């Protein structure tokens, strides 16, 4: 014992550090990553690698040379953004588009606000939406899964896209479902077309359960999104099954599960309180469905989450923790 250490209480600290939390998110994303690589092949692995590496490189360069601070790569948050961005892109996205996405995600959505913890909007989603608006050709050019060893890529549209297109041309939902041969089991285990993270609902749910078990996140936001989507689509579907898709289809298609489990639950851009989280989730679910049913885009999860991100400061202001001894 050299010099006695003196500090205010408490003298013990939880082992769950930011790094551990972020690493848990990466671990939770692994099933989705593995499945997407298996389904979409080497190209997907390439997109993932480019996305993660460029996110980390951009964060490093900005902290090191613009902010002149110690590197924050150790907290793994840039890696999480990179993986999420890649899972939100089609596997056919060219490398330079991925890099632009990473630059917008980290450089604009995260670092300009002051880095981890300060950003208002989910960085990966900002990157994705930026690309969706700027490079619609690449972003809606989905490839039909050919597997790890598939030879020729066949391009096509996502189920949501197919149905939106079909409805505009006057077909009905059941017709379209049947003619394209969409089945729920296929959607649960291996999606037909879409961004990489939409490949397999089971893989995403596995990751979600891991996060719950590790107490990284609480289930309320995810459950309220899924519940709202199910309930609202149920109402529309029952009213007019020819025009509106059914709840199960809505839950399993598109990026809803990925968004609800991993993007909406992002600490920084979601409300702190349980009540706020539930309202946040209801908002996301509702806006998603409105875009899907009435919007011009086939998919609305990204927009819904970003719109609700902007309400978070307000929700944090309105809803607080239940305090002891104060009714």
């Amino acid at each position, binding site marked *: 014992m050299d*010099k*006695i*250490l*003196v*500090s*205010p209480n408490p003298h013990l600290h939880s082992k769950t550090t930011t790094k551990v939390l972020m690493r848990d998110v990466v671990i939770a994303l692994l099933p989705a990553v593995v499945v997407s690589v298996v389904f979409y092949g080497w190209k997907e692995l390439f997109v993932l690698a480019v996305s993660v590496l460029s996110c980390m490189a951009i964060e490093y360069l900005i902290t090191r040379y613009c902010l002149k601070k110690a590197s924050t790569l150790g907290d793994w948050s840039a890696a999480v953004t990179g993986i999420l961005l890649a899972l939100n892109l089609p596997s056919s996205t060219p490398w330079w588009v991925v890099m632009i996405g990473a630059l917008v995600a980290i450089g604009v959505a995260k670092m300009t606000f002051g880095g981890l913890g300060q950003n208002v909007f989910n960085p990966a989603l900002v990157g994705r939406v930026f690309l969706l608006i700027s490079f619609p050709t690449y972003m809606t050019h989905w490839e039909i899964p050919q597997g790890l060893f598939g030879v020729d890529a066949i391009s096509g549209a996502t189920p949501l896209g197919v149905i939106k297109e079909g409805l505009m041309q006057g077909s009905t939902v059941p017709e379209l479902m049947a003619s394209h041969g969409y089945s729920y089991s296929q959607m649960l285990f291996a999606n037909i077309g879409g961004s990489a993270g939409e490949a397999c609902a089971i893989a995403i749910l596995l990751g979600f359960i891991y996060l719950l078990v590790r107490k990284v996140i609480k289930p309320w936001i995810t459950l309220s999104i899924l519940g709202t989507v199910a309930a609202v689509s149920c109402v529309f579907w029952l009213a007019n099954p020819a025009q509106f898709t059914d709840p199960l289809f809505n839950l399993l298609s598109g990026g809803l599960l990925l968004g609800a489990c991993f993007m909406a639950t992002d600490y920084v851009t979601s409300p702190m309180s349980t009540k706020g989280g539930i309202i946040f989730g209801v908002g996301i679910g509702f806006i998603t469905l409105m875009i899907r049913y009435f919007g011009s885009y086939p998919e609305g999860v990204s927009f819904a989450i970003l719109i609700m991100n902007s309400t978070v400061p307000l929700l944090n202001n309105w809803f607080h923790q239940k305090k002891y001894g104060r009714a």
Partner: protein
Amino acid sequence: MTTTIIWTIAIISGLGLLLALTLYLVAQRFKVVEDPRIELVEKAMPGANCGGCGFAGCHAFADSAVKAANLDNHYCPVGGNETMKKVAEILGYEVKEKAPMVAVVRCNGTCEARPRTSEYDGSISCKVKASLYAGDTGCAFGCLGCGDCVAACKFGALSMDPATGLPVVDEEKCTACGACAKACPKAIIELRKKGPRGMREYVSCVNKDKGPSVKKACANACIGCGICQKTCTHGAITLENNVAYIDFEKCKLCRECEAMCPTGAIHGVNFPKPLDKDAIKARVQERQKKAREASAAAAEAAKVAEVKKEESNG
């Protein structure tokens, strides 16, 4: 086509007029009538809003000064006499001039003089540290070195010296607003008279412990030996709770105490010449010797007189 344009112009213009009217009415309704002198006084103020005057900011000071009957309780330490003259002119009051002051750090427990006895592992804040314990040295009174004073200074006049671990006051920038003195949980920083050409003497220690334990904790500390008090011929030095204090109103800047201090706890700053310790020491010792001799002689004389008196009586 023409009607559309006309209608558009009419509606937009009407709307504009309506809104302008609303704005005007609201402005009239919520108009705050303020003494125009408040604004004048505020303009004369430095505008630092430091709170050094004891008011929340320059506006609060101006408001209070205008309402006050005189300026006895209003003095802006930042702007000093010049600002106060202007304020007095605006309000037609008398102003009492004050000697310029400066913040003085009364701790010289440098890293070498005051060895660290523990390692602090908490927030870098003097307040937090002070509420936790006496500090990471043997001295329970000295500077904690976390820089609360630096953070409190709105004028950038304070900085931590990494070599000593103590704050340093930039006299040019210090406005004597007192924010640092308030921020220091150990009450080390004191506002003292700046002195002629910045020259001043002060005891750079506030340790109230008894000599031996102080000496163990810090080589530069005031040990309360009282030599300075005995040396001072102006009655400027008081010794209370084992620590000396120099009254800057009485100090004549003779530097004798500084030369005599056995630990170097008394600091003199901005003197043109370096302290000639030996010469002053010799001078003081000579004077004290003479005084001793004189008092001995006086005592002797008194004794002789006494004896004579007795003799004459007898």
